[in-house]
């Protein structure tokens, strides 16, 4: 295999290398020009949802790392698909940036005294993109569709016993157990969107057509290149400020940097800090970090020796220097966390978790107690999860210090998930869903036989505690979740909880009104482009 190049080009190459090495003296602190900030928490002002849109509009070109497979809410769980769909569809209620429940398609709601049902009052006059009026029948239809055989979302709604519609504007959700909080938490997030049955009847499914009522309408999908949306003029809020959004596929974070700098795209959500920080110092771009709820963890395969031994798991936790991991992997762009992310009800200060204090001696002692000295294991990680990939070498190094010889096994995301859910691993990195409410994750991820329980852990005491917490309210609820967290970390340890990852954003200075949410959801309903 032979290659060649002109001497001039080789010279150019040398010049280029020198330029790169010498350039970019501005890259220094994280607070730089043009209003870019490093926010520790999302303290931006709440986005107005019903005030009249400002003069400026424009079409936002948003970079997206992957092209959606389809745009059908019942078939998609991938983040990048929902990046598009969240703009096309509405939910009954939604989260404010402070994680309070706000009206969406539902104007108001009442929780029954016994907690076994919630009644929602729909907003009159809300329209679908097709022009059809949105009534309670559509809500019934949507949840039937979401819970149907064809849907992949069914597991989320297992707590709903029945849904009825006494009249056109009222919907009643009857629950299997008195857990109204759980219901709110799932209704406020994707995929609990309301779909237009007439569109489904006409097209068979929603994979390539728009059956929504949201702020933006699907305009054009150029496969491999972009998806374009335009503003929905008849939206119940009066309409979003933007004229439209074009989601352009930019699969590579470095290309995203280049595209942002060249003005090819206006907005991008980064997962790799090394790429994201290259935005800094550019006067036409804004670099922002916001705290987020999803966290990275390492799961133990509790169905295998010696990982089934709690002493071993505790030992590993003592042997993980989480401060060093966060520092080296993310350069402190996140927070060390327990099972409930910091800031949420039920989260505890790290001092409550003894095994979070880095103590290699104690680690060795516990691992020895479990009879697992000089162990060799495989640490699996999804190559699509940048934070986990960055943390892996650090974890391997730390495990080596306590006598465990670990090999990193990067897996393509489909294979990673197969191994995760099939319990085909020793230790494996994972990411939590970032739910603001702990009902769903504690039941599904940590409960006996839970749908997302990827460690195989089972503790009836824990399940009982969680059940009590789900039915409780107020301070009692918080206390119960705190107790459950303590149990998870100090006794059970099915996962070694590590850190949350700050969301990293890069956008053009013209982009205004974009509010990052601590959730995985991204909304552009208040965004607009200020013409310079």
């Amino acid at each position, binding site marked *: 295999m032979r290659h060649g*190049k002109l001497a001039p080009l080789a010279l150019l190459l040398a010049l280029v290398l020198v330029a790169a090495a010498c350039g970019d003296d501005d890259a220094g602190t994280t607070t730089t020009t043009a209003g870019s900030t490093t926010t520790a928490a999302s303290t931006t002002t709440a986005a107005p949802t019903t005030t009249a849109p400002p003069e400026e509009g424009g079409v936002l070109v948003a970079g997206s790392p992957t092209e959606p497979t389809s745009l059908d809410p019942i078939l998609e769980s991938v983040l990048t698909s929902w990046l598009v769909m969240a703009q096309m569809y509405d939910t009954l209620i939604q989260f404010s940036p402070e994680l309070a429940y706000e009206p969406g398609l539902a104007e108001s709601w009442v929780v029954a005294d016994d907690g076994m049902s919630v009644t929602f009052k729909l907003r009159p006059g809300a329209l679908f993109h097709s022009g059809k009026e949105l009534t309670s029948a559509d809500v019934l239809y949507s949840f039937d569709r979401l819970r149907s055989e064809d849907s992949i979302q069914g597991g989320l709604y297992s707590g709903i016993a029945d849904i009825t519609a006494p009249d056109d504007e009222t919907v009643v959700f009857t629950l299997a157990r008195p857990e109204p909080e759980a219901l709110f938490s799932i209704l406020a997030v994707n995929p609990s969107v309301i779909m237009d049955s007439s569109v489904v009847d006409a097209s068979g499914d929603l994979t390539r057509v728009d059956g929504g009522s949201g702020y933006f309408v699907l305009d054009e999908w150029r496969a491999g290149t972009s998806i374009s949306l335009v503003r929905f003029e008849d939206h119940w809020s009066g309409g979003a400020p933007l004229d439209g959004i074009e989601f352009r596929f930019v699969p590579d974070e470095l290309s995203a940097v280049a595209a942002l700098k060249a003005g090819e795209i206006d907005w991008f959500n980064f997962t790799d800090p090394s790429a994201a920080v290259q935005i800094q110092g550019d006067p036409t771009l804004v670099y922002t970090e916001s705290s987020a709820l999803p966290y990275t963890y390492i799961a133990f395969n509790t169905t295998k020796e010696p990982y089934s031994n709690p002493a071993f798991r505790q030992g590993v936790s003592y042997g993980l220097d989480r401060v060093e991991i966060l520092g080296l992997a993310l350069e402190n762009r996140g927070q060390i966390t327990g099972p409930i992310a910091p800031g949420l009800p039920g989260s505890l200060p790290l001092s409550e978790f003894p095994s979070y204090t880095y103590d290699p001696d104690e680690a060795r002692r516990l691992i020895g107690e479990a009879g697992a000295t000089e162990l060799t294991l495989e640490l699996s990680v999804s190559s699509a999860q940048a934070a986990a990939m960055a943390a892996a070498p650090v974890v391997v190094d730390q495990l080596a210090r306590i006598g465990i010889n670990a090999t990193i096994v990067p897996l393509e995301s489909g294979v990673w998930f197969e191994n995760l859910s099939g319990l085909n691993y020793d230790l494996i990195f994972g990411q939590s869903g970032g739910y603001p409410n702990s009902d769903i994750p504690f039941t599904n991820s940590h409960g006996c036989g839970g749908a997302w329980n990827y460690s195989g852990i089972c503790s009836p005491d824990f399940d009982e505690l969680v059940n009590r917490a789900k039915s409780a309210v107020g301070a009692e609820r918080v206390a119960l979740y705190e107790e459950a967290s303590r149990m998870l970390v100090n006794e059970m340890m099915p996962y070694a909880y590590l850190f949350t990852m700050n969301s990293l954003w890069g956008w053009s200075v013209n982009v205004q009104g974009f509010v990052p949410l601590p959730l995985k959801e991204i909304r552009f309903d208040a965004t607009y482009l200020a013409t310079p």
Partner: protein
Amino acid sequence: MLRYLVGRVLGGIGTLLGLSAIVFIFLLLIPGSVVANILGPEGSSSPEAVARLEKEFGLDRPVAVQYLDWLAGAARGDLGDSWRTRLPVSQTILERLPLTAELTVLASLIAVVVGVPLGAIGASRHGRLADHATRVAVLIGSAIPVFLTASLVLIVGSTQFRWVPPTGFVSLWDDPIQNLETVITPAILLGVISAASVARMTRGAMLDVLGRDYVRTAKAKGLRPRRIIGRHVFRNASIPVLTVLGVETGRMLGGAVMTETIFSLPGLGRLVVDSIGKRDFPMVQGAVLVIAAMFIAVNLMTDILYGLADPRVRVGRGRSN
């Protein structure tokens, strides 16, 4: 000649068949499933959803049936539907083919435009400074990997010059300027790399021819050097140059995947890689088939040109590497 041609074409088809079978078997053996890929972490927990998708993709049928079914469709021109986008494979391939083809053609042109003069200079100034200089230049870059230069060009271009090639593909007929802007940088990077082989072959072939008797005769007859070079040397030296160009075009088809990845261009090379990652079997099979067919076609054309240019060769020749 015709018999030779027909023989080669049949051979090519046979090769494609075998290749598709090998690819099919390979895809079966590798770990990972498209279903898990599509459904993602939370979706795959539903066995009904998994079973439904498996049925839709025909994964519940015996392996031989799946392959023959695909083969029958391919013979009709129907390469099936992508498991990821649900769109017809042939449609996606046709959308992506122009970019890769244009990239390869442009790179080949650049390889010739750069390589031939360099080789000619080396040959005509054989042994002197210009010869050594061009050889060294050609060699220095010969070892620098394309992904290195591509990354550097992209990063420095966007950082220092605030320029980046457009990431979408616009057809040449729709908007020639944007089209060229997209394609020219990767084409230059690829073409210049192949220019080395072209230069070497040109130089060698010209030196070879320049030493031949009929050239000395022409010189003795008093023909002007330009006439000699143009009339005799070039035509006879072009044969091996064409050969190497054919080989390099094949390499460029492969090298395109690197540049397509780094410049984020929606080409055929990247399609194969992405589809493999997502375990989208119909797409992989279809794309591999098309790329191999292109490769074989290029080699075939090279051989034909070779046969046309050199009458000595027209009588039966096997392909040797």
